[in-house]
């Protein structure tokens, strides 16, 4: 079995996680699964794909209005930021009710071809038995529908990828729950999956919070499933591994220039 590190990054912001992911993708030759559910990080972020056009995807005025309504004390905890991530794909609202699961893999170790559809199908084979075990109701059916993970007709997770010559990232933001009010910060995208039809966000998505016992159960069963395919080393959130990665992200050369410049950036709302 090929080795894989299963890393829990609880407590790490999505912005920092994305930069670490990009670093691991481009600077290592190892396999990783990153799992991050951080209910104590109250900030909401809008995360756009690499080529996303801000003004077509985000209600910028609504976000600015919300941010301007916050007091100085509230800003640090509640300000909505816009992040451009290193992977393709669409725009998502993420917050303390989002569960992030990211695969960063050698293509040769994944039993799929390094193309978008093949990678998606490969991940479906890993998730299907996990959801079969953890969903309360047998009436809820997990599947990959076009590019999304769904329970029947409703989206529970959005996917995005970056594919390099020998490696790829496939990452997912699963909805544990969602704030309908904040969904209004997103515009209806021009390109939508056919199965969505004209449904607004709130009719198109659903959370997992009332369909499985806990995020811990999800992580545990996912860990067990991955162990059937890989030689897994588990790194809990307090293992110190996050700090190691952060240190490597900050390395500079003799001229003070960063050795690695991630494409993931915080975008201005102005």
């Amino acid at each position, binding site marked *: 079995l090929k080795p894989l590190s299963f890393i829990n990054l609880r407590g790490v912001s999505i912005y920092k996680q994305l930069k670490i992911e990009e670093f691991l993708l481009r600077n290592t030759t190892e396999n990783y699964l990153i799992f991050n559910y951080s209910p104590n990080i109250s900030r909401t972020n809008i995360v756009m794909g690499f080529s996303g056009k801000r003004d077509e995807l985000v209600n910028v005025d609504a976000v600015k209005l919300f941010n301007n309504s916050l007091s100085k004390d509230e800003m640090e905890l509640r300000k909505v930021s816009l992040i451009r991530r290193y992977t393709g794909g669409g725009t998502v609202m993420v917050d303390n009710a989002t569960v992030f699961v990211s695969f960063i893999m050698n293509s040769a170790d994944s039993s799929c071809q390094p*193309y978008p559809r093949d990678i998606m199908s490969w991940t479906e084979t890993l998730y299907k038995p996990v959801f079969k075990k953890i969903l309360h109701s047998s009436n809820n059916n997990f599947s990959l529908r076009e590019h999304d993970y769904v329970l029947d007709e409703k989206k529970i997770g959005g996917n995005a990828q*970056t594919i390099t010559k020998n490696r790829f990232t496939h990452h997912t933001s699963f909805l544990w729950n969602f704030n309908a009010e904040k969904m209004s910060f997103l515009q209806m995208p021009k390109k939508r999956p056919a199965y969505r039809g004209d449904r607004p966000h709130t009719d198109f998505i659903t959370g997992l919070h009332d369909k499985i016992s806990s995020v811990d159960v999800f992580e545990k069963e996912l860990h067990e499933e991955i162990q059937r395919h890989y030689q897994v080393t588990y790194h809990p959130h307090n293992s110190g591994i996050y700090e190691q990665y952060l240190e490597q992200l900050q390395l500079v050369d003799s001229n003070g220039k960063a050795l690695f410049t991630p494409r993931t950036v915080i975008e201005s709302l102005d």
Partner: protein
Amino acid sequence: RMFTTTVAKIAIVKAVGQIKSFRLLSTTIKFTASHEYIKIQGNVGTVGITDHAAGLLGDVVFVDLPAVGARFAAGESFGSVESVKAASDVYSPVSGEILEVNAALEANPGIVN
């Protein structure tokens, strides 16, 4: 059909990494293992991605083009092609300098496939 839309023209410094090569009249065409092709005429190469790769990517929504004048080493990523959910790196088959890019891809990335 083996070829799809051109991405860039590159002045060749050093060619490496080909797995297949054949001649079509005065043009040599080479392919990489990562599905880029280069059509070589003299010391200028025209680079793109194969139909096979373009088909597997799905609908292309964005092409990240290199800057004219930029230099790349053989095997180095010089741009990316983004489909609905994936950004896929494109690798230079040769070392060289970008002479020209296919600007039509900026406004209409879908012409790739």
